[in-house]
């Protein structure tokens, strides 16, 4: 196909394809029941190539982690689907077939134009439950995928527009809160049918051949643009690493070892020296591993468009034999929320040494998942509650990191606390900025969050899948690490319980009056803390971000306890001493 596309049509078709996806995103999110989708935007809709599942377009506000995974998922459907007809729809959540974890359920709808398969429309949404040992699916101690829940290979759930009630019954019989999940299923399917309508209108307007030729041209251009970005990075081989606290089962850190080779406009990513597959659920399926690398690049170069061409110059060696290439039946619930963020961190930390003028220190990098399943005796019902939390972002090349940012791989908001208290028998005692947690630097990290939540009635079981409890998010260019994650379970009449794995645990029994205390990580610092302007440090003390004692140690600035005035002589003497000590 070498049809010439005029530049105007090309731009218009590009906008048109993205808008189809935006409309699917919006319809899905507004109609969904799972708060993870409706409030946290944990969903994504896109258009994929009919032959190989390559990404053609994704919405502007689709969840980042899904941008790379969905094309592998679509490919898996294409390879398995037989007798595809208009109005069909496949459901799948198999992590090993182009997925993330089981809770991310994908719908695939073949798009036919005038009787001929043109492409696939697909979306992913995070369901609140897909069965398994722990409500919500984040089992910190699962040792195989069966313990994590119901696994669906691509299955034709809708046949020529008609729901297969038997398959639906199997799905609904194996998950918790099935009564509400039916609402999500309908919302997810409706989004794809809205996409079908809009894409048909676009094709009617511009013609099949023009749209097809535009897609090819847009892919070529995106690749060209990504190559231009990579070419800005000096050639060479660079190394970086990042650590996860543990896999939740074996209490040892997991290491991501990254080798990045830049050769002209091509990038080679090799993580095959990383830790071997793990017992617990911190294994990462290959689709997610790849997607994490793409997200990191998109965060560094946000203006590159999103289609398969963008990924073309990024060559990723399959990290065989590591926890970043999970094979059946390895448990994987932590891969999307935690491992992917740590892969991004390794990418950021590596490139911060090479192109610091575009980079930032490590963000909190954990979704901070705390799940509580219990019984409310007053309302006489069982409940499953999640709290996801944010943390500080890293200091960046031109400013301090923001506080309480969302996960690197997400764009999700947290639920209002007042809404949580309406739904569940809990009471928040505190939700505050975690003082002192921002990593010191010329541009300091943002701050994490401290929250305390108390159980008011009945009994419950708590589980945690968080990370960055052993070491904090990395500082770069001489900046310090951010404060690590902390969790304390305070049961009445018992000493405080600290999680042996720092950030992961499950099956902790709680009763009325018991409390959970969480402190989320601060972001890493960017640049030498001794270069931070004393006046900025004074203001940090005045606002209570740090104590005077902390800033004398972290920044070498001498200031009174209220942050009213800097002592310039003492500061300069202290900084001289500290500089000499590190030199």
């Amino acid at each position, binding site marked *: 196909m070498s049809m010439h596309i005029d*530049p*105007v049509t090309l*731009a*218009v078709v*590009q*906008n048109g394809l993205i*808008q189809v996806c935006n*409309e699917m995103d919006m*319809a899905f999110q*507004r*109609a969904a*029941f799972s*708060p993870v989708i*409706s409030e946290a935007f944990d969903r994504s809709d896109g258009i994929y190539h009919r032959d190989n599942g390559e990404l053609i377009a994704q919405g502007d506000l689709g969840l*980042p982690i899904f941008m790379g995974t969905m094309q592998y998922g679509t490919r898996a459907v294409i390879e398995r689907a037989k007798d595809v007809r208009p109005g069909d729809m496949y459901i799948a959540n198999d992590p090993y077939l182009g997925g993330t974890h089981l809770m991310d359920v994908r719908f695939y709808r073949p798009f036919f134009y005038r009787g001929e398969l043109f492409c696939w429309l697909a979306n992913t949404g995070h369901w609140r439950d897909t069965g398994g040992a722990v409500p919500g699916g984040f089992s910190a101690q699962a040792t195989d995928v069966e313990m994590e829940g119901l696994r669906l290979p691509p299955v034709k759930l809708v046949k020529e527009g008609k729901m297969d009630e038997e398959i639906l019954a199997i799905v609904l019989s194996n998950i918790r809160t099935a*009564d*509400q999940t*039916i*609402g999500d299923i*309908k919302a997810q399917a*409706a989004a794809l049918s809205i996409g079908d309508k809009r894409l048909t209108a676009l094709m009617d307007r511009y013609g099949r051949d023009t749209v097809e030729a535009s897609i090819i041209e847009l892919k070529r*251009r995106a690749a*060209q*643009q990504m190559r231009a*970005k990579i070419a800005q990075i000096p050639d060479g081989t660079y190394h970086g690493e990042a650590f996860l606290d543990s896999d939740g089962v074996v209490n040892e850190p997991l290491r991501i070892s990254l080798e990045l080779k830049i050769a002209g406009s091509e990038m080679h990513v090799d993580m095959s020296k990383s830790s071997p597959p793990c017992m617990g659920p911190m294994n990462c399926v290959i689709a997610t591993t790849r997607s994490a690398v793409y997200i990191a690049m998109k*965060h560094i170069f*946000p*203006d590159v468009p999103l289609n398969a061409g963008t990924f073309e110059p990024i060559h990723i060696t399959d990290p065989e034999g590591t926890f970043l290439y999970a094979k059946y039946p390895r448990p994987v619930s932590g891969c999307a929320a935690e491992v992917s963020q740590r892969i991004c961190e390794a990418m*950021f930390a590596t490139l911060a040494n090479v192109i610091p003028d575009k980079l*930032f220190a490590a963000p909190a990098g954990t979704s901070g998942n705390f799940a509580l399943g219990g019984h409310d005796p007053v309302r006489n019902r069982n409940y499953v509650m999640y709290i996801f*939390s*944010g943390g500080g972002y890293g200091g*960046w090349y*031109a*400013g301090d990191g*923001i506080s*309480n*940012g*969302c996960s690197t791989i997400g*764009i*999700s*908001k*947290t*639920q*209002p*606390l*007042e*809404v949580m*208290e*309406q739904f569940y028998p809990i*009471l*928040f005692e505190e*939700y*505050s*900025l975690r003082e002192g947690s921002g990593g010191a630097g010329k541009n300091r990290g943002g701050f994490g*969050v401290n929250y*305390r939540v108390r159980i008011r009635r009945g009994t419950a079981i708590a589980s945690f899948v968080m990370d960055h409890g052993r070491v904090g998010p990395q500082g770069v260019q001489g900046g310090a690490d951010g404060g690590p994650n902390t969790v304390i379970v305070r049961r009445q009449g018992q000493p405080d319980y600290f999680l042996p794995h720092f950030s992961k645990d499950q099956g902790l029994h709680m009763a009325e009056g018991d409390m959970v205390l969480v402190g989320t990580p601060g972001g890493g610092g960017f640049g030498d803390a001794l270069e931070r302007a004393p006046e900025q440090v004074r203001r940090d003390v*005045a*606002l*209570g971000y740090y104590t005077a004692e902390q800033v004398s140690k972290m920044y070498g600035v001498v200031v009174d306890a209220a942050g009213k005035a800097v002592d310039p002589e003492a500061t300069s003497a202290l900084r001289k001493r500290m500089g000499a000590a590190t030199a």
Partner: protein
Amino acid sequence: MSKVVGIDVGGTFTDLMLVDEASGIVRVTKVPTTIENQAFGVLNAIDAAGEGFAELASIVHGTTTTTNAMLERKIAKVGVVTTKGFRDVLELGRRTRPHAYGMTGNFYPIVPRDLRLEVDERIDADGGIVRPLDEAGVAAAVKTLLAQGCESLVIHFFNSYINPAHERRAAEIARALWPNPYVTAGSAILPQFREYERGVTAAVNAAIRPVLDRYIKRLRHELGGRGYSHDLLVMQGNGGTVSSSVVAEAAVHTVLSGPASGVKASAYTAMASGFPHVVTYDMGGTSTDVALIRDGVPQTTTEFELEYAMPIHVPMVDIHTIGSGGGSIAFIDDAGILQVGPESAGAKPGPICYGRGGERPTITDANLVLGRLNAKKLLSVDNAISVAHVAAIIEREIGAKLGLSAVEAAAAIVRIANDKMAGALRIVSLSRGQDPRDFALFAFGGAGPLHASALARELAIPKVLVPVRPGITSALGCLVADVRHDYVRTVNKPVQSLDIALVRTILEDQRAEGRRTIEGERIPIEGIEFIHAADMQFQGQSHVLTVPLDRAAVSREVIQEIFEKAYFQRFEVELPEIRAVLVNVRTAAIGRRKGVDLKALVDWGAQGKTLADARVDSRKVFFDDAWHETPVYHREKLPKAARFDGPAIVEQLDTTTIVEPGSTVEMDAIGNLIITVPQGAAR
């Protein structure tokens, strides 16, 4: 005493419209906006209208004072007293980042951390008191904030939406100590759940309240000094107006009142022309605002965000803004694809053709090269720049990189810009379950009528309406706006188990409060009306859908049915398995003001007898890949009931209307141009 005045302050100009209801005379004036203190511009505009201040029966004022104060953070020093453990809610937000991609950016809370103090108290989600209010603690915190120099105060307590007792008591204590009236309780501004959104809305109110209060007091003083003896009315973001005596108390309601005023005028004008369903399209120099009107009523939102992480959740006209305006810059991106905006050349340097040193092609420049704008009649030109020079730059910057001539490149710029604007129109219509084909496109703003026909064709909207005075629509909005107050109460109960008596009581309470407030304002009105609505969702959802509520027929069955229908229209999903929940009950109390006879806007004496009288020129204009010799008409001289075919250009002082080939124009009885756009001709 029959003269009423509407004054809207815009970024560049302050527009005034004066209607003498007795004689039918209308005056329109346009003076430069005085940025430091908008009051001077307002007074200048009245002076320019040439009527004595003592002769005016009422003045309705739309001001950008509060919007600008927020966007530029020229706000009062605010202190917050909040529930123990929650001082950082306003700084932590909802765990977001400024951009989906890119881990950089800044966020500054409206109230810095050292001015947010905690007191012990706690109310639970059912309204029960967990810990009593520490009244001494409130007094101490208030004194500390005063000592720190705060001018305005917010009381923001957790769960106050369900039980405001502690907030009310704390406000009472604070008022006894506070030297001015600037004490804002969150539940009084927005009795709705979501602690961040309610807190920010209250903090915005507190931050702009002294600013607005000072401005209004000064303006009233100046007006009084010149002999004006009646109340000054002020426009709000909900498209209604309110007495200046109470406006500052709920200052947050005035944010974005200018654009809302334009939408209100559109609704009024379109209704008078027989179009109840309208999409408004207001294109100016830097941005484009679009909104939806159904049955003559501008649609409102309660989830507006002024900028990143600054939600303002009081009801506002639902205006969708995109960064496409006459000054939007066209460029070729790294992938070699033509993009237009959102970067704007602004007022300085402005488009190339303004001759202020602009070197980057804009939408206005493209329109000029295509003959759509009259080079001789451009406003705001400092140094005349030849069309040939503008064309040369477009060719160099855009054409050469795409293999297009200057004219082709200019046409491409307009096409891409139109495509983006059409996308915005789709979002307010199609994405909300509304078919654009059922609507008319109401074009205003300096550049709206220039692009409207093309957009209508793109979206298959059959009719475009260009009002008599497209450049001063917001000033007209001030004249036709009704007095309006909005009330909301959170219920949050499944419809099945809903206590319907409670809903009725809420509605009656809201009506009584609305009536009391409006009557207390003593604004001349012809009657009070109420619009009721319910925010609803299926159990377990977090978004709500607002549906109209008929007070006479409030029952569980009816509420359920209305919701299910509205839900299906919007999302194409039926959910009989799941229970519907009534989240909030809303009432808008509307004091109907006397309308304006729109015929008065037309200068019937200036009209020509025939079309030929109005024809002032003819020039070549580029449409659809070819130049067309196009007649140019002078709007004021068009004869009564004029009717002509495109291509045509209609010029008037404040805008240029483009009629594409194949379209037909008719002037209706009140002077509006109705353009009929051919259907199915879209390319």
